C-alpha cells in the first residue's frame, strides 16, 4: 500500500512538472496567440521539430506505454555550400534534447507531447555558427481502437479485454505543432533549411497507426501528415509525410525486459514556399533503416536507436543526411 502510494506520488509529480514546464515555455514565448508574433521579441516556431523531433522518429515507445521521459537525438548533415561543384561543404550537427511524454486520459484516449531544446552547430571551413534554444513543441491527442476478436463459441464481445493490451490496435492522432522555437529569416540563406530552431508556424499533425503485439514479436507502424502553416515572414515549410515501422521482440529475464527492434522509416517533404512562390530545390525524400533496443527495468525504459539513411534526395541533392542516434530514458506511468 505504501509502495503504491509512493509510486503514485512520483507519477503525479513528474506529470505536473512536465505540464508546468511545458506551460511556462509557451507562456514565455507568447505562443498561444498567433498575432503576438508580430513583435520581434518572442518570435514564434519548425522544420526542425518535424525533421529532428518527431515525424519518422515516432512519438512514443515500442509497447505504447504511458511515460514521461527525456530523449536525446543527434543528427549530422553535410551541405553543399555554394553554387558550384567545387563549393565547400558545411557540416551541420544537430543536438536535440526533448522532454517527451505519453499521458493517458482514459482507456481510449491519450496525449503525446514533446518539447525539444535545440542545439545546432554549422561548420564551414574554419567558422562555426551555433544556434540554440527551445524548439517547436507538439501535442497530439490519440484515439486508440483495439481490435478485439470475437470469441468463437459465442457472439458476445468481452468488453473487459479493453483494459488489457489488445493484439491489434489502430491509432488515430490529431495534433498541433506550436511555434515555440525561434525562426530566423536570415538563416534561410543556408542550403540546409533545417538549420532553424523553429519554423515559426502552427502546423497540423494527422496520424494513423497500427500496432500488433504478439507473444513473440510486435509491430508498430505509423503514418503522419504535417500540414505546415505559414509563418510571419510569409515563409512556409513544405508539407511532410512521414512513416515509420518497427518490428520488435522481447527477451524477458527476472529483472529486466530487453526489446530489440529493427525499423524502416522515411520522410517526404514538399517544396518550401515564400511569399506564395515555390522555392526550387527545397523538396526531398529520405528513407532510413534503424536498429535499436529498449531495456525495461521496473518502471524505467532505456532506449537506444541508431538510424542510417538507405536512400535520400534532399533539397536538390545539396543536403546529405548522415547517421542519426537517439537515446531516451522514460519513466512509465
Amino acid at each position, binding site marked *: 500500500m505504501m509502495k503504491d502510494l509512493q509510486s503514485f506520488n512520483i507519477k503525479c509529480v513528474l506529470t505536473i512538472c512536465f505540464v508546468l514546464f511545458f506551460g511556462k515555455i509557451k507562456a514565455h514565448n507568447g505562443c498561444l496567440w498567433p498575432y503576438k508574433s508580430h513583435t520581434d521579441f518572442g518570435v514564434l516556431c519548425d522544420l526542425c521539430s518535424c525533421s529532428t523531433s518527431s515525424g519518422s522518429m515516432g512519438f512514443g515507445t515500442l509497447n505504447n506505454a504511458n511515460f514521461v521521459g527525456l530523449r536525446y537525438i543527434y543528427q549530422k548533415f553535410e551541405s553543399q555550400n555554394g553554387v558550384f561543384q567545387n563549393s565547400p561543404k558545411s557540416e551541420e550537427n544537430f543536438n536535440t534534447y526533448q522532454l517527451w511524454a505519453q499521458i493517458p486520459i482514459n482507456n481510449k484516449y491519450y496525449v503525446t507531447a514533446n518539447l525539444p531544446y535545440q542545439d545546432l552547430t554549422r561548420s564551414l571551413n574554419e567558422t562555426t555558427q551555433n544556434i540554440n534554444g527551445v524548439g517547436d513543441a507538439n501535442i497530439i*491527442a490519440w484515439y486508440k481502437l483495439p481490435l478485439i476478436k470475437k470469441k468463437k463459441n459465442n457472439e458476445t464481445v468481452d468488453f473487459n479485454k479493453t483494459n488489457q493490451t489488445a493484439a491489434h490496435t489502430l491509432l488515430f492522432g490529431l495534433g498541433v505543432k506550436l511555434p515555440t522555437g525561434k525562426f530566423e529569416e536570415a538563416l534561410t540563406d543556408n542550403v540546409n533549411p533545417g538549420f532553424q530552431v523553429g519554423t515559426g508556424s502552427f502546423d497540423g499533425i494527422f496520424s494513423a497507426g497500427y500496432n500488433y503485439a504478439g507473444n513473440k514479436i510486435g509491430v508498430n507502424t505509423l503514418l503522419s501528415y504535417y500540414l505546415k502553416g505559414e509563418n510571419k515572414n510569409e515563409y512556409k515549410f513544405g508539407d511532410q509525410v512521414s512513416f515509420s515501422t518497427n518490428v520488435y521482440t522481447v527477451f524477458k529475464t527476472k529483472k529486466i525486459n530487453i526489446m530489440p527492434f529493427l525499423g524502416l522509416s522515411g520522410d517526404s517533404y514538399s517544396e518550401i514556399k515564400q511569399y506564395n512562390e515555390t522555392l526550387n530545390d527545397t523538396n526531398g525524400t529520405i528513407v532510413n533503416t534503424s536498429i535499436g533496443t529498449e531495456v525495461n527495468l521496473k518502471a524505467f525504459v532505456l532506449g537506444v536507436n541508431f538510424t542510417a539513411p538507405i536512400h535520400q534526395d534532399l533539397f536538390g541533392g545539396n543536403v546529405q543526411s548522415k547517421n542519426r542516434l537517439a537515446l531516451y530514458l522514460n519513466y512509465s506511468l
Partner: protein
Amino acid sequence: MKIVKLSIALLMCAIMASCSSDDAEDLTGETGNIILKFDNGVDGNDFVFNTEYSKSNNESFKLETVKYIISNVRFKDADGNTFMYPTEDNAFIINEANANNAGEIWVELTGVDAANYTEITFGIGIDQARFALGAEGQGDFLEQAEAEGMMWSWATGYKFIRLDGTYSDGTVTNQALNMHMGSVGTTLDNYKETTLAFPNSIVVRNDKTPEVHIVADLMKAFDGVQSVKFSEGYDQVHVDEVETPIIATNVAAMFMVHHVHNH
C-alpha cells in the same frame, strides 16, 4: 478530454492564422535595397586565380585578372513597371580580386522602389549615351575605372571586360593571354545588355533586402555563343573590330541568376 479540446482549439487557431487576408499594400514612396552577388565560375566550378582550366581545341588558360563593368541596372516588376537605378550611380566594376570569402563580389543598390521584381536587366560595359556625356559627365566612375585599369585613353574609352593570364596548347606553354574588350570610341559599339528572369520574385521593402545571386561562367567568354581559339589571335583581344564583337556577344551571354534570397 480537456486536452483534446485544447488541441483542437489550437489547431483551429493555426488554421485561422494561416488564412489571414492579403490586402494590397500601398508602397508609394517606400524604398529598399537590393544586393547583387556576382559569383565568377568556370564551367560549373568556382573560379580560382591561376588555376588551369581546359577549353575547346586542346587549349587551357589560367587567369590572374578578372574584371568587368556592369551598368544600367534595372528591374521589372510583376506589373511590367521598370525601375532604373539612378544613372549617375549606375556603373560598377566587378573585380574578382575584391571577392569575399564565399567568392562573391557584392553590389549594394540603395533607394530602390519597393516592389516585387521578376527580372533584372543590365549592360556589360558603358553605353554610347553615357560615353557621350564626356569625361566630366562620368562622375567618380572615370577615376575608378582608371585606377582599376579599365580604360584605354578617353578617346578610345572603357575596357568592358579584362581577362589577363596565360594560355597553353599542344605547341605553346604559358603564352600571354590578354582579353580586353570594349567599345572603340564612337566608331565601334560593343555595349550589350542581358535580361535575366528571377526564379522567384524579389520582394523589396524598407525592411527587406533581397539578394540576387548571379553566376558568371567565364568559360563562356571563350567557349560561348561562339568558340574562339587563342592560337588564332584571340590570345590578344584589344580593339579589333572583328574579334571584339564576338567576345562582347559571348560575355553578354555568360550570366545567369542562380537563385534569389528574400529577407
